[in-house]
């Protein structure tokens, strides 16, 4: 029998491929590098957010603050670039430090005060959104020449696709996350924590350090998503990206990660993002459907994937090997 988390990943990948083929059979022009390039560009900030969310959910937590952090980041950058002569790269570093520290602070509260992540990050969500309002209530345009330079970094693929830098950043983030989760001790500790915090402690996992690092990564990646979003929109607006945390959670779950933690792959999240982007693209191509159909389909998919996980979990324990079969005669 196949290991259930991997099976969930394959099912997500198959779903994406099937959905893409079905869309392409209706609208053959969807089979173009242009569509693929736009899929990556349009979902870059959501994709980055979802990477951080995967870490958090794998560890058995949740982070509701990320949407607000993205909005805050946009306003923060826009205001700094408007009011000071700071170079955007310096502002980027400053912002990443702020959001990472913010994530680490939430992680510390969750660990040391033994508070549920849901409440702590909910508070973080209000806090960050409020801070964004304090900085500016209007949409602040970003006109720095450096932004034009970044936006001009384009790789033109044959077929008219324009692969932009921000899509590349997202893909890079997924590759790094995969290495961290599967090839480092910290990564394995994330899974251990999600399996059972009590057991992980008994097995010597440094719970405090791991928890804080996980939420710091979530905050840092949300900050990076904020930078990408500001490049994508050339503005900072405190009302932007409301509810993005829920989209990110949806992508993680559709990607096959167990919402209770301990099981899943960041690669699955990538396909979760692509599936969600694909639905939107399909609706654009169709032209007659209301964009709310995106939400309905995502809702249906989420439900289907939750049922699937239940079934897979049940199948793994049912298929338990008895001791006598695997024991060698000694």
């Amino acid at each position: 029998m196949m290991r259930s988390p991997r099976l969930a990943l394959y099912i997500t990948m198959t779903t994406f491929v099937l959905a893409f083929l079905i869309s392409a059979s209706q609208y053959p022009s969807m089979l173009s590098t242009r569509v693929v390039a736009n899929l990556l560009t349009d979902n870059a900030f959501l994709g980055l957010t979802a990477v951080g969310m995967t870490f958090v959910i794998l560890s058995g937590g949740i982070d509701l603050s990320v949407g607000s952090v993205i909005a805050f980041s946009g306003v923060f950058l826009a205001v700094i670039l408007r009011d000071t002569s700071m170079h955007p790269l310096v502002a980027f570093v400053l912002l990443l430090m702020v959001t990472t520290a913010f994530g680490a602070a939430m992680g510390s509260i969750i660990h040391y005060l033994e508070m549920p992540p849901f409440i702590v990050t909910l508070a973080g969500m209000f806090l960050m959104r409020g801070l964004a309002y304090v900085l500016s209530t209007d949409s602040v345009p970003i006109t720095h020449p450096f932004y034009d330079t970044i936006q001009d970094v384009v790789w033109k693929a044959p077929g008219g696709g324009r692969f932009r830098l921000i899509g590349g950043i997202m893909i890079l983030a997924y590759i790094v996350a995969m290495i961290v989760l599967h090839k480092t001790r910290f990564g394995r500790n994330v899974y251990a924590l999600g399996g059972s915090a009590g057991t992980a402690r008994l097995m010597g996992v440094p719970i405090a350090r791991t928890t804080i690092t996980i939420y710091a990564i979530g905050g840092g990646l949300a900050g990076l998503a904020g930078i990408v979003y500001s490049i994508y929109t050339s503005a900072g607006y405190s009302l932007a990206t409301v509810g993005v945390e829920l989209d990110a959670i949806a992508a993680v779950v559709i990607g096959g990660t167990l919402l209770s933690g301990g099981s899943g792959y960041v690669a699955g999240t990538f396909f979760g993002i692509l599936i969600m982007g694909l639905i939107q693209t399909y609706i654009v191509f169709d032209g007659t459907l209301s964009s709310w159909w995106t939400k309905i389909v995502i809702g249906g998919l989420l439900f289907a994937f939750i049922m699937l996980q239940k079934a897979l979990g049940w199948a793994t324990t049912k298929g338990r090997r008895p001791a006598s079969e695997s024991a060698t005669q000694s």
Partner: protein
Amino acid sequence: METQMKPILRAKGIDKFFAGAIALDKVDLTLYPGEVHALLGENGAGKSTLIKSLTGAYHRDGGTIELDGAQIDPRSPVESQALGIGTVYQEVNLLENMSVSDNLFLGWQPMKRRLLDHREMHRRAREILKGYGLDIDPTQLLSSYSIAIQQVVAIARAVELSGKVLILDEPTASLDREEIELVFSVVRNLTSRGMAVVFITHFLDQVFELCDRATVLRNGCVVGERKLADVSQGDIVELMLGHHLEATKRRAKQSSPGETILSMKGFGKRGMIEPFDLDLREGEVVGLAGLLGSGRTETCKVIFGVVSADQGSAELSGKSIRLSSPRTALEHSLGLCPEDRKTDGIVGDLSVRENIILSLQARQGWTRPLKRSRINQIVDEYVKALDIRLASPNMPIRLLSGGNQQKALLARWLATEPDILILDEPTRGIDVGAHAEIIDLIERLREQGMALIVASSEMEELVAYSTRVVVLRDRRQVRELRGEEITTDRIVKSISQGETAA
């Protein structure tokens, strides 16, 4: 021979206090390399406390620990593991969501160029497990293997990380015979390599099968250290229970019980309790005796329908009934006071009043709430009758002492005016005064014609109030004692020898 060897672990005069109460009183434990040492005692004797004090899970209040001749002072199980003392618990403390290799190597994975070397990890995992007689695929999830295999993986991890002393806390409690064999062969293999193993279990047969020596605890004190080759099971049981040889006064008069009210034939549940026959008459107390895990609690639960029986039949006053859930049992005027009142009995944050009327209200159905005046009347009546000491019936029940909580629970069931009352360990964890009151109450209820089933680990108590005593062993009824036969001596003998003939 052992006395000439140098001990690998020597704990001396270990003390541990909990909120002023003595949990361990100058406990000594000596382990020699290559031995399996049983740590025995009834529940609450201090076995777990001793283990936790040794491994640093608890901070001990006195005493010294020497490992290999050097003083150690571990602050956490992780630290004691690094020093050489590994522990494996009854519920496998591994991560079911990760692979077997991940579980074996978490925290000390082989690295290559600063990244984890999965291939090397799987190779070594396979090799290590082969040494334990397991030929399994370590890349698979731990949850895809049986509990026995998980237990062996846990042992393997503990041995790899510690290597001197291995503590097994009830490792066989949820295993079947074949699986126990697997764990035993692993343990024997380890001792032949010179490790010392501490084996904690309630199954005496397993102790005599596997262990070399035993340390017996009772009430936080060591009451004996024995070479198992020199003693019988009976000796060990006597040590564990510490039964006093003077005969306890029997209070249950030879009153003639009334008509049979509940009759069960071949009643049982696979894996929990072997089929048994039991006739219960009005005005009698049937005591259930046996060691922990012998099937006392299971018998209570099966009768009340907490777990429904999968074989046999039950008759209530001559009518066939199905006891499939606590709800039906309640409808048939049965009541059960469970063993663990904290988790199964009281609702801690509700008031004493609400706790007392809970079952009565449940039987009435939620659409027909009890009248406030009626509630107050019932509560006042039982608070007075049972002498429950409280500031007000409105206070949360968790603030009451153990004895008063137990009395409130009894009141809950008495309020439903049951014909049959099942009490599982009614006197556990309550002070001496309340203890006597509860025994008096059992007496009174019997005289009023109620039929009671009482499971208890205290022999004296059973002798005091039982009309008959049913002795259980290994989840099976082995003996029924009546009248003059009911003495602590006979009960202990029946438990240890498992004599079946009447």
